[in-house]
């Protein structure tokens, strides 16, 4: 098949920006308007996942300044220099973070593509409120999407962490 090809290669100047992920600082060349998500992917932090690119699903969530934020809606000029935590910065397979462990114990996901959003949102929630109520948990999660429908076990895992039990 012959394809009709149009257009030419071109390059424009990028900015050198400081990126601090999981405690390590590096310098990247990036468009200041580029969302953090794509720069993280280029730097091999790939667990913040592309789900919608619209801030609607939470799959790309990272923690900046203690808050769960959507890296697909955070431009590099905002993220540069800030302390960014990704899923890779929590625990390791040999030593999972307690949030990761709780989700493993609950066998909480089906495909797991969305899990980054749930784990990072849970982490931010518990760091600011160690014993959230059921309605606080659900409210924190209302902006997250799980297409497989793994919600039942996700909530169980978080209730376990929060030390609450459904009535």
């Amino acid at each position, binding site marked *: 098949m012959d394809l009709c090809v149009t257009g030419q290669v071109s390059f424009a100047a990028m900015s050198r920006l400081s990126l601090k992920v999981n405690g390590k600082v590096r310098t990247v060349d990036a468009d200041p308007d580029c969302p953090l998500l794509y720069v993280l992917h280029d730097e091999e932090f790939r667990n913040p996942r592309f789900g919608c690119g619209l801030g609607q699903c939470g799959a790309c969530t990272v923690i900046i300044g203690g808050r769960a934020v959507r890296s697909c809606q955070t431009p590099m000029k905002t993220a540069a220099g800030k302390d960014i935590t990704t899923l890779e910065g929590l625990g390791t397979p040999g030593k999972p973070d307690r949030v990761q462990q709780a989700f493993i114990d609950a066998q909480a996901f089906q495909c797991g593509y969305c899990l980054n959003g749930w784990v990072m949102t849970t982490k931010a929630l518990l760091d600011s409120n160690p014993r959230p109520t059921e309605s606080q948990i659900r409210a924190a999660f209302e902006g997250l999407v799980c297409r497989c429908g793994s*919600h*039942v076990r996700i909530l169980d895992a978080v209730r376990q962490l929060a030390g609450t039990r459904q009535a």
Partner: protein
Amino acid sequence: MQFGSSLEQGRRDMERSRREFIRDATGLVIGFSLIDTSLAPQVLAQRSTFPPGAPGRTVPAPDRLDGWLLINPAYGPGYLVQVFTGKVEIGMGVETALAQIIAEELDVPVDRVFFVMGDTAQTPDQGGVGGSTSISQGANPLRNAAALARAVLLRRASEELNVPVADLSVRDGVVTARTTNRTTSYSNLLTSLTDVPLRVTGQGFGLNVQGDAKPKSPADYTLVGTAVPRVDLPPKLTGTFSYITDVRIAGMLHGRVIRPAGVGAKLQRVDDSAAKSIAGYVRTVTKGDFVGVVAENEWAAIKAAKAVKVTWSAPLTVFSTHERLYDYLRTTPPKSSRDTLKRGEAAMAIAGAAKVVEATYEFPFQSHATMGPGCAVADVKADGVTTVWSGAQKPHAMQRAFAELLGVPLERVRVVWVEDSGSYGRAGFEDVACDAVLLSQAAGRPVRVQWMRDDMTAWGPKGPPVVSVMRAGLDAGGEVVGLEYTSYAFSGNEVNAVPQVAGNFLGAQLAGVPAVYGGDEFAEWSRMAPPYAFTNVLARAHLIAGFHPTASPLRSTHLRDPEGPAVSFAVESFIDELARAAGADPIEFRVKYYSEPRAKAVLEAAAEKAGWQRRGDPLVRRTTSGPDLNGPAVTGRGVSLGVRNGTYVATIADVEVNRRTGVVRVTRFVCAHDCGLVVNPDGLTRTIEANLMQSISRTLKEETTFDRSRVTSVDWPTYGIVRASDVPDAVDIVLVNRKDLPPGGAGEPSSRAIAAAIGSAIFDATGVRLRRVPFTPARVVAGLRG
């Protein structure tokens, strides 16, 4: 190379987790294509380095044991079992269940079993994933191959230990002679599995192999039937797992597609002058009405796809609009009709009945709306040697289709499956792979295409809408004397779920390849809902031609049990209506007309767990969770039965309906599930729970909307699904484990028994029968206002 090196690496680093190792293997396979790209598929296919001396071959041979399974040394004195399967993991834990089945036959620990899945250069063609068959059918050749491998290993052990095979026992891969107490290990018997023939039968999902060894009796199982944790969840949760979106190839460009302005719009002009100032922009590719951009980095591709000015002709106005969809289906002359069940004289019996009940049920177009919107990488070389990385469910079929698309021999194309987000059918991951092939071919470099959200939700294929018209006659005693079921639907297979021809793909169709119609797939009772044994029955199915035969965003195909949820919604809701008309309890009513003991057993199990109170009296609002009857919230309870290919599911839904806002919340779900022998009770329970949530979503929220030319549900706000606030307070799964039966399908059956249970519960709560899915607040309020 390939496994040799990955195993070497495994030996070097004994501390690494099992799944890290697997992921390294994936990385190596990916990396390998860089070494000699012109030969990659052929060389990779040979696997001649393991076991040493095995003859090279260009395609996996299902008639040889080592085409399925190898036992290889790794981790010092240990060994690992490498299994090559055409089945793939789509998020329901089948990898873990298959590992249990294989480990059971071989008497090895489950963590010794590693898979290569869905790689056309390495695995047999098992038809990929579909129809909830991965365990019920797909495990058969793996079980038989493992049983044969054990027999071969024991024969070798018998020679080595100088005792009869009957004297040997195996535990964790260590073979012990009972009489002499001498031992040997699988790791000492490694060369035994070459050149062992297998007898091949069937193909696709039904591909099976048998050797001269019988698998274990289920009575002897010690691993199958236990709650082995999912092998993939620790690496996924700790961020060491790679999905398809993580595949990176040296020299790779990033691509985005630009879809037409609406159905049938033709490309007029492309102006990329604005894109040329974007750092990293490479070029715009057009072929017919297919348009895409490629760039050196992802952000440049995203910006360029917006910056390129594309002029389209006015789209066709061939869609009915979603508001008029059901009228369109009912009034358009069918392209094809079929009687799917005929017994006695239904029309005559209804004409003579004391009471006639009629109702029409409607189920919308729904989108797969996968969590990741679709991603693939393709590397098309100038000589046609092509590698495609894709998360679609049927890699071997795609190999055939891409060979056709590129006009090259089959063996030049290799499709490597890498896990994507849960796809639940022919979701569009096939189409994004085609987009990547088209862009790589044009750009002359590997291209990674990431679909944006609307590429999936708006332009991905759809589950078909179904209208079901039902009529029944009851005699004076409440007996059903006749029943008619008539469906009007788009084909569930307009886009063939088996993507094995080039004309199957959206991108190819846009590029000018004639669309290939997948075939007639009817919305049929009794196959898609319980086969109640009424004396006089006529079930008739009409298929309506799709709105537009090519490159339509409303093309229909398989979405988790294509027409099953729609047909079961109609039949099971109508059964509830008939039970009420007859003054009967809906469970007793079902059992009366359907004598299958397994159906009765799941209904009774669900009723017992839920504390079902007999219903048959005039409507009584039950206040199980105690809302104020004078306030806006009322509660109700409904039941439904789902039957699919030998799997039986009964669900009981408790709902709370806010009469002011119309919001429905499922407060409790009880689901009794019998799919024969249970391989992994925990994994099965999780998959059923998740399917219940997804089915609540499809019942209460999901509807693809569209105007005359375009799909208008394009993202999460416009195609809403369940959120945390929709999660029931309790979900109780009751597994009916039939150890006397083979394991059956479990991915889809529970999606059949949801909508009717919720709809009947809403009726129980409010006296309003909703017959159009989804049960949105506006429809509930409209129903309450009469």
